[in-house]
């Protein structure tokens, strides 16, 4: 089940792209160059990279608030312009939504990115419709929605899983269980700390995945996507992982927990060890990949910074298709 080394290295690069993107973004956010709020996906790179690896541009995913990385990855992979995700976060005219969406509302259907919704989890309902359309048209696409453990609290979780189940819709639920919803531990906010326990009653395959082991995550996403494309209906994956970002106001988790996840369970470090063990690649080779990616992100940041702000008058455009006259 071990991955071939090229794929593993590609995934390593993808994970670094996600991390470098978030680190660069965070730096700029702290400098005041990025408006609004910022939630980063650092620590969850393996989950995102595994999903991105298997979802085609003709599939779709609904990203959550920590998904800048997968958004950028999809944008880069399918259109070669990941910088437009960065520009969106800077609120620029060159962004994927011309600055109207920002961190919490970046979308680009041409790369399968169907847009975040800052009302956490509302797209658990929306994903049903995309999947239904594909089912009706007999297109073997996968409609994926990425939800945090906290987001599982929403009533739409039930409505969505139930409807996907009864209609056997091609939906991939990718639950990123990073242990907390803001400050609420998953075991305090839910009847079970294992989200699959809440999903199982709907009769779809429910699988827990180590979200920090890229090989495992990659394999499980492959299995899920294959099953869905084969017409077997919805599939639920719970990725056990951890986010490096604490609260806006600082770290709130026990020091040992922080150490464990950042040191022992860092998905990038773990992948590095694997690559080292399985190939002749040296630390220097991997460092070079990292440096390349970091460099690439800096050019994206420059692109974003140097992009024009949107034309203010555009603020009233596109409220209605066809304008106020509804043509």
């Amino acid at each position, binding site marked *: 089940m071990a991955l071939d080394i090229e794929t593993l290295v590609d995934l390593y690069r993808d994970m670094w792209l996600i991390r470098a993107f978030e680190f660069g973004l965070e730096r700029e956010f702290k400098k005041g160059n990025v408006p609004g709020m910022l939630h980063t996906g650092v620590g969850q790179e393996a989950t995102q990279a595994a999903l991105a690896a298997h979802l085609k541009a003709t599939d779709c995913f609904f990203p959550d608030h920590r998904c800048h990385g997968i958004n950028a990855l999809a944008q880069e992979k399918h259109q070669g312009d990941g910088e437009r995700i960065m520009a969106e976060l800077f609120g620029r005219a060159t962004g994927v939504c011309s600055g109207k969406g920002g961190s919490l509302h970046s979308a680009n*259907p041409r790369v399968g990115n169907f847009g975040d919704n800052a009302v956490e989890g509302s797209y658990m309902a929306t994903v049903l419709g995309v999947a239904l359309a594909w089912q009706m048209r007999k297109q073997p696409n996968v409609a994926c929605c990425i939800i945090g453990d906290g987001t599982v609290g929403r009533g739409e979780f039930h409505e969505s899983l139930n409807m996907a189940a009864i209609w056997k819709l091609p939906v991939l639920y990718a639950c990123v269980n990073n242990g907390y919803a803001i400050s609420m531990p998953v075991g305090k906010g839910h009847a079970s700390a294992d989200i699959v326990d809440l999903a199982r009653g709907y009769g779809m395959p429910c699988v827990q995945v180590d979200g920090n082991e890229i090989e495992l995550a990659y394999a499980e996403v492959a299995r899920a996507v294959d099953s869905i494309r084969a017409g077997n209906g919805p599939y639920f994956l719970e990725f056990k992982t951890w986010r490096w970002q604490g609260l806006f106001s600082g770290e709130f988790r026990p020091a040992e927990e922080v150490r464990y996840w950042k040191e022992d369970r860092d998905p990038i470090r773990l992948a590095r060890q694997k690559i080292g063990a399985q190939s002749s690649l040296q630390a220097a080779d991997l460092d070079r990949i990292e440096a390349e990616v970091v460099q690439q992100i800096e050019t994206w940041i420059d692109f974003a910074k140097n992009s024009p702000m949107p034309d203010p008058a555009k603020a009233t455009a596109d409220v209605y298709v066809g304008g106020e006259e509804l043509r």
Partner: protein
Amino acid sequence: MSATTVRTRTFVQALNEALDISLARDPNVYLLGEDIAEMGGDFGVTRGLWAKYGAERVRDTPLSEAAIIGTAVGSAMVGLRPVAEIMFADFLGECYDQLVNNAAKMHYMFDGQFKASIVVRTACGGGFGGGPHHSQSVEGWFLNVPGMVIVAPATPADAKGLLLASIENDNPILFLEHKALYRLKGEVPEGHYTTPLRKAAIARPGKDVTVVATMKMVHEALAAASELEQEGIDVEVIDLRTIRPYDAETVLASVHKTGRAVVANEAPKLGGLAAELSATISEECFRALKAPVVRVAGLDAPIPFSLVLETYILPGKKQVVEGIRSVLRA
């Protein structure tokens, strides 16, 4: 409308024809909602369509209003044209987020990349002892929401033409069907035609006073106009038809002509459509107005069950007549 045959049909039959024609013309159109398939819907609007188009395109759902709207929106994102039924408008509270935060904003916030081309049909309005949760007028809930379109026919012909126009339009449309009108009969052209959105109709031309009304209140206003005609009062009745965004031009032109305006809407007065219309008329016809605008609207209360109470709350012909008299007096 072209010179096609015109027959007499009920409001329900007119709606049914519009759905039938849409399903036949456009493979992207499908219907979803609770008990709309074999059963044909609580009010029979979808009757016969399941048998004709099958369970894929006339689709029963569980009692999951948020998922119904979510499904509609998601399928619209990839080009389908769903027509969702929410059995009673009062239940729109269940899917308010889906409509207001997602459907209404999607085209805008994603910079035009998606269209939430959905129609949400729903039965609204009171008068039959339905009580607090089966009788509300909900246009006020969505009036302050940019991106939402609210359509509200008053006649069978418009019900059909506006529903066809709504299904063919690319915006998220809340399509209000007043329950008291379902059995109303009227002339309905055969075949396909559309009635333009965001275009009010002059239901009755007149010169002394303008009454702007919606849905059932159009008929109350027409009845009031007939009554007052005998006293030589010539009432112009405007049927707004689209509530958001609305045809201010037609309304204002009429009030500029008559100099007096009554706005008639079944919802509670405070903060409802009547307020919006009164404000816009007052601001834009300031010099032309000979008397303050009068709002004829529901009293400020939930809709009670007992008919004697409900009748007391809801406005009707009597209140429109009083409203007209008072703007003429002032």
